[in-house]
């Protein structure tokens, strides 16, 4: 076991950087695999072993690994976020959570459409600020670990990607529900009597998901790059 020389490390950085990976956790994992493996061989064997690794970690394989990782991480984030939401409805937190949900269900229909829209905009704005803070926090962590990376890709934590995706899904569905009938020339959903139900459901789902994601972030931020 030896420490790799600066030139050798640069070759590894270049090889890993060329794989076009945008997820920092995967890039770091592959880089660590390369270095851990190469450290076991002499300087004379370095090129042969590096080529052998390149044959295993082809760009195609790395891309597939990245796509699968993103997919699985999204599923995991959704599961974890809802798990945290369910925890809000367990004793004794359930008292406060149920009171808040009931208050929204009771007062939402009493509000006029402008106030309902205003409440939605405020929640969307808060969501944007919350995710920007998480992204910035993650970016600061990534910056300190980025010294091994020589590629041009903008690196992002897999958890940031999955957190944003979790919020993106209900937001997109709501946007589609509101805008598509109007664009297609059928009706304006805001003028229908169902609007208060749709907007209230979206407000509750987005609010609860944000709380769930915040709890997941609090746990993950201790050990992950978020």
């Amino acid at each position, binding site marked *: 076991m030896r420490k790799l020389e600066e030139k050798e490390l640069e070759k590894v950085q270049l090889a890993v950087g060329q794989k076009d990976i945008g997820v920092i*956790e995967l890039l*770091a994992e592959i880089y*660590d695999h390369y270095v851990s493996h190469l450290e076991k061989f002499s300087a004379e064997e370095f090129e042969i072993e590096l080529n052998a690794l390149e044959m295993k970690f082809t760009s195609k394989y790395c891309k597939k690994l990245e796509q*699968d990782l993103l997919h*699985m991480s999204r599923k*995991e984030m959704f599961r*974890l976020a809802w798990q945290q939401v369910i925890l809000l409805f367990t004793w004794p937190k359930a008292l406060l959570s149920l009171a808040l949900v009931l208050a929204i269900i009771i007062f939402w229909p009493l509000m006029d459409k402008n106030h309902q829209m205003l409440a939605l905009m405020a929640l969307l704005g808060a969501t944007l600020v919350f995710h920007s803070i998480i992204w910035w926090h993650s970016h600061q962590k990534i910056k300190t670990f980025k010294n091994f990376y020589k590629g041009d890709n903008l690196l992002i934590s897999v958890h940031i990607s999955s957190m944003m995706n979790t919020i993106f899904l209900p937001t997109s569905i709501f946007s589609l529900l509101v805008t598509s009938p109007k664009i297609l020339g059928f009706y304006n959903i805001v003028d229908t009597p169902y609007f208060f139900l749709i907007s209230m459901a979206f407000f509750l789902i987005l609010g609860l998901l944000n709380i769930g994601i915040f709890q997941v972030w609090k746990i993950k931020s201790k050990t992950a790059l978020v």
Partner: protein
Amino acid sequence: MSNNNLIKGSLQTIILKLLEENEKMYGYEITQRVKELTEGEIKITEGALYPALHKLEAEGLLTTEIQQVDNRVRKYYSLTKNGQKEVSAKMSELQSFVGNLQRILDPEWKPGLA
């Protein structure tokens, strides 16, 4: 025949068992530990290892931790509470399968006989 095909179905159990015994491990360390324990007979390929690790993490059986080691980032895997529970279930499943396989290959074989 390459033993990779035979290993494929038990890879998750192997990973969980190793992590039960070692608390936390990183990807390359797992490949080396398997190689060492089997005296080079079984080699876990990178192509199978990382997807399996990511899948176990997504299923909530493993948790990860990022640490800085020698100026680089290392991703350690360890068992979650669910993962700890799953190890014994997976081990019994595998042992039962190996026993049944043994009965097929050698009908005279009795459990406990060398």
